């Protein structure tokens, strides 16, 4: 059984990008009952369209119903679950035994995956969910590779693990720092990421701050490509990329990178150095935060922490293509570039194409020297055929 590459999407555009760049499945949030309240979530009509788009391409769609629900959150939930099932959603991801039981009692055909919010860290805890007829477990990110190896020997339930993306400082689902400091509920979609803020450290009344930095609990992002081959050897069911709030370009780069590595593994039995280098270039292109391998090597030390949360904006993504014909791409500008710059065409399939901007005009046909107005529509000559999933980036 081949591993599933599971990507996030905050809206239909990003779902389509994830699929075109190689995701086997995409997880999305509805407008209700989902974490990531600000991830421009999907209406039921959107979910229906997403499922149709995915199923036509033999891919899957999972819907997050992963808030830790309060009493009132159950109002309308049963109806919502039935609707998701009717539109052929493949699975829901939930963090509540009551919701799992509700789906099973309703005899719905969609699967139920237990969210990482339930902090499952060992095979005995997995057996609880297996007894309750859960279809898959998303393990806590805190499981080390050595422990995962043992877990895989002792469970028959499909196991999903994180491979890439943002990390909570502490156990997801067990943290309410955001609730305490901002009244925004970390477990119901409103996390303010207070763990990434800076804190003074005291012992009794003595301040222990360092001169150059305050303490932060903030984590580097996970990028565990160095564990990918071992995870595939173990037979995990699914590799999850975190980030329903990330941009389409981020999703494209990360998904394509893992697609390259996974395909190489299944083709050659291992991942080649050449493909690894290709993937690393993509990881670096899409991200603006530092990486580490998460908990796979063990409990993180200082190499897993970020004390300065001043994230630099990633400006390598310059434009997306909204139309193409006869060698001319109609583009929507996202970041600054100018005539005669050498740019890159980044496509779902195939290698990158580099070209010099020799012709750049506005919709009136007037030459534009500098593209510096975000969302401006321009036309430019491109050397190869492009489509709406193409990204124009810095070279």
């Amino acid at each position, binding site marked *: 059984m081949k591993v599933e590459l599971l990507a996030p999407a905050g809206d239909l555009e990003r779902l389509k990008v994830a699929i075109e760049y190689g995701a086997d499945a995409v997880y999305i949030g509805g407008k209700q009952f989902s974490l990531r309240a600000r991830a421009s979530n999907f209406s039921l009509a959107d979910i229906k369209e997403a499922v149709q788009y995915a199923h036509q391409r033999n891919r899957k769609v999972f819907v997050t119903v992963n808030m830790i629900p309060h009493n009132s959150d159950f109002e309308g939930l049963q109806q919502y679950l039935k609707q998701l099932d009717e539109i052929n959603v493949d699975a829901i991801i939930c963090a509540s035994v*009551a919701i799992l039981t509700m789906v099973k009692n309703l005899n719905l055909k969609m699967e139920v995956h237990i969210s990482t*919010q339930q902090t499952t860290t060992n095979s*005995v805890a997995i057996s609880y969910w297996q007894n309750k007829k859960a279809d898959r477990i998303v393990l806590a990110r805190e499981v080390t590779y050595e422990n995962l190896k043992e877990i895989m020997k002792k469970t028959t339930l499909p196991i999903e693990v994180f491979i890439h993306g943002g990390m909570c400082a502490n156990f997801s689902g067990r943290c309410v720092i955001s609730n305490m400091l901002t009244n*925004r509920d970390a477990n119901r*979609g409103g996390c303010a990421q207070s763990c990434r803020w*800076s804190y003074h*450290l*005291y012992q009794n009344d003595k301040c222990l701050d360092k001169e150059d930095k305050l303490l932060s609990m903030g984590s580097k992002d996970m990028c565990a490509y160095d564990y990918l081959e071992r995870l595939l050897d173990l037979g995990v069911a699914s590799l999850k990329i975190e980030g329903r709030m990330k941009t389409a370009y981020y999703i494209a780069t990360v998904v394509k990178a893992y697609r390259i590595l996974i395909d190489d593994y299944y083709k050659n039995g291992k991942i080649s150095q050449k493909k690894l280098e290709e993937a690393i270039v993509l990881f670096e292109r899409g991200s603006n935060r530092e990486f580490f391998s998460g908990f796979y090597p063990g409990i993180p030390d200082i190499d897993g922490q970020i004390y300065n949360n001043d994230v630099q904006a990633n400006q390598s993504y310059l434009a997306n293509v909204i139309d193409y014909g006869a060698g001319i791409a109609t583009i929507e500008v996202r970041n600054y570039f100018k005539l005669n710059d050498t740019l890159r065409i980044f496509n779902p399939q195939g290698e990158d194409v580099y070209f010099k901007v020799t012709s750049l005009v506005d919709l009136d046909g007037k030459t534009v020297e500098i593209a510096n107005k975000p969302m401006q529509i321009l036309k430019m000559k491109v050397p190869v055929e492009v489509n709406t999933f193409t990204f124009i980036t810095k070279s």
Partner: protein
Amino acid sequence: MRIVTSVFEEKSLLTLKKLNVTHVLVNELNFSSAIKGFDLKELKNIVNKAHQLQLKVIVKADRLFNQSELDELVTFLKYLATIEIDEILFSDLTIKMLVDEHNLKLKTIYAPETLLTNKYDVQQLQIDGFDSCVISKDIPLVDMFEIVSSNKNYCYLRVHGPILISYGLRRFISVYLDEFKEYTDNYYLKEEHRETLLPIVEKETGTWVYGDTLQSISEINTIFKQPLKGIIIDNMLYDDEYTIKVVKIYKDVLEQKIDYEKAMEKLSLLDEKINYTAISEIKKTALDKD
């Protein structure tokens, strides 16, 4: 109604008993979040002493357990059954599964801190054979009461003690300071733009961050009218002297010897460094900035 309080010293048992405490909550050092508590030998002793006073003993083992710790955890649970503790309070459902698998005579209290926020999940726990549970502390009192009335004589409510707001495996203090410090409970975080002190406890097995200390003085009479299994006063960061004084204050309020204002005045005088949040102040959280 069961009245449960933390205890750290054997000599406090009799005083707590006289104050109508029915159960004492003791921390096992290795398997709990606590940095103050008992090792296995001391645990046996405190169980015996408590039982002599007709006090029941609840052992707290509230860490989350990784795969490599399971054998050690089973040995521990078997030991607890041998020394005849009365109940075990835990936040990892692994313990319930192991108790069942090994047919151990241990009553289970599931206390996953943040996860029990609705009546339906609690109903499922009853169906699954958990003996009782502790409702999450981060929901409004009205929600707590709705859960309790739908699950009569099943739930414990934390009414007093430091509020755990985060738990993880990273060792934030040691990593920041570049050295392993002596494990003490005297560390605090203070967010750079806020005044609130957040106690932070680090052990080899993880880090726990706390917020204010919860208090339920003005609501304790209402709470006592609810069909609860019990209330918990868990002062894991403080000592028995503080706990005994706190219990006396609640007892005086319940017996109408002092009013709420006087009780709050007494409470605030116990330790001026402690910031309190009333249980009635825990609001329904917003989902977003809007």
